[in-house]
């Protein structure tokens, strides 16, 4: 291999690696979110995760997002549809189909604060999925309570669970007008 070719290969490879790293790093994804106007809170954007939120995800979740809003049902009537402040009640998110089973969560909001997230259905296609989602669900719940939104980091090793969980949660929050 000639020196010139080796130099070109090294430069190109490093560029490719750098681009891959930037695409996969939360800081950049949060920048994209900020530019898109969806994340406003500094702590939330820091926790926002690239694969869970910003990349086009599995085809399994794509139709689920489309049906999210209509199927989300509220078990308690929100005080007002549009203003978020002071919402109280329990809201059930849509059922999100993933490769490893269906996911559905409900969210409890008290006076505009997320106080609880309950997993109604978790990925259960096999014992591996059950084990993964059982591990991920408490982590996700804690993150959501901390961030007060569905913009939280991917739980590593449980990408599908995370995506399904957060998609269903977002549908519930949308229904609450939160």
């Amino acid at each position, binding site marked *: 291999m000639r020196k010139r070719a080796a130099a070109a290969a090294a430069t190109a490879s490093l560029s490719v690696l750098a681009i891959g790293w930037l695409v996969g790093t939360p800081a950049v994804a949060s920048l994209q979110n900020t530019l898109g106007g969806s994340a406003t809170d500094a702590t939330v954007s820091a926790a926002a995760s690239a694969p869970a939120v910003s990349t086009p995800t599995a085809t399994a979740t794509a139709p689920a997002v489309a049906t999210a809003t209509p199927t989300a049902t509220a078990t308690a009537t929100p005080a007002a549809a549009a203003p978020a402040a002071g919402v109280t009640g329990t809201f059930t998110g849509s059922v999100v189909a993933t490769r490893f089973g269906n996911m559905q969560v409900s969210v409890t909001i008290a006076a505009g604060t997320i106080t609880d997230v309950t997993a109604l259905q978790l990925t259960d296609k*096999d014992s591996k999925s059950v084990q993964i989602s059982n591990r991920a669900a408490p982590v996700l719940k804690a993150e959501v309570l901390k961030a007060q939104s569905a913009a939280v980091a991917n739980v590593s*090793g449980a990408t599908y669970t995370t995506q399904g969980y957060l998609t269903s949660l977002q549908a519930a929050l949308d229904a609450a007008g939160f």
Partner: protein
Amino acid sequence: MSLDTRPLRLQQRLPETTHTRRQPAPRVNPNYPRRMRLADTLQVLCIVSVALAVALFLGSGGAARFGTPADALTSIGIVTGLVGTDLLLVMTLLAARLPAIDRAFGHDSAMALHQSLGKPALYLILAHAVFLIIGYALSSEVNVFAETWNMLTQMPDMLLAFIALGLLVLVVVTSLVIVRHKLPYEVWHIVHLLSYVAVLAALPHMLTAGTVLVAGSPQWYYWLALYVAVAGSIVVYRVVLPIVRSLRSRLVVAGVDREAPGVVSIRLTGRRLHHLQATAGQFFIWRFWTPGQWWQVHPFSLSAAPAHNSLRVTVRALGDGSTDLASVPVGTRVSFEGPYGLFTDRARTSPRIVLVAAGIGVAPIRALLETATFAPGQATVLLRSHSVADSYLVDEIAELCRVRGAEFRIIAGKRAPGAHSWLPGDAVNARISLRTLVPNLSESDVYICGPRRWTDEVVRDARSAGLPTQQIHFERFDW
């Protein structure tokens, strides 16, 4: 007397024959810079494809997944799997007879690289399996055997992936030099074809079990495009093109001429053979459709420059199959893959040429001598043999040398036992080498064809004479 040289430097005026119609004024081949640019491009693409495989992982947020031992092991497992598979695809392309690869590196070098990538690719894939099993076992808090069982029984497409791994191990083990020499070529070849099955069987688990190649993501599109491109190359260049060319050429055996005990020239005729764009020095992989031969293929070089409707090969009983070729009937249909190889005038970089052959390696040398570009007095042919009598095609070569004005030497004699040289023992003692045999060696391209170890010795001699790599061309015929 063991060093018999027959200088035949006849500088007569050349008659107007077909093979001297070329411009005799020597020129440095303008092809070389273009060929090196192509080679550079292919090498860069190959290395960047490895970087891309790692970038796929990083792009899915992989850099953040090294926090716990379980995550770190899982992440390493994913990266080794991606890079290993990328190398497998590169290997497959190297064996796909892509015209660009043959033009840039030649079949020989491409296959040598293919061979040298085999073990690293297997080790990466094995590491992929081991790291992921340990990583998963750690996160599920079970032992590795239980985790392996869980993966096999509960994860999608994992059974196929384990089968693919088993096939890969089988393919690489049968290709180890020590094993391969004990197997008939056909058995090795059939086992080797299983690597296609392995690469395909491994695909489903990459798409369903991982989180890197999520359906619809850019990663997913890239990976599938890579697979489609590689599979397409195999189908087009290893299956469709050879069949179409064989059918179009309608090649049949026109005659078998006995050259020496155990050595025959097979003349083949067909139609529109110039469409193959074969050149002297190239080889084809032949299949003779007789009841006892059709299941065997033979890589043979052309032993004469290809003509519009005829080709010729000269073969010796080397493997099991070559023995019966002496009795192949006239009219036998012949199918082929090829032409392949860069052992041609296209690889030239210098005005002078030196052709060195031993044994049946004389065949492509004889073809090259017919059409290579050189002016009278600027070519040397060296034939190495045990005794003056056991060289092949000597009369033809002597005649071509006379007509084209090349110097011709037969170097006969037994090798000194234990000596590492391509020359006879007493020639070594007399300090004879390529440099003393060939005038103006530094301005020459050296073409070497012979048995593997002998070829290596000539290459070593040429290198020690200070000849740069691009002026040394060789083809080993015992693969």
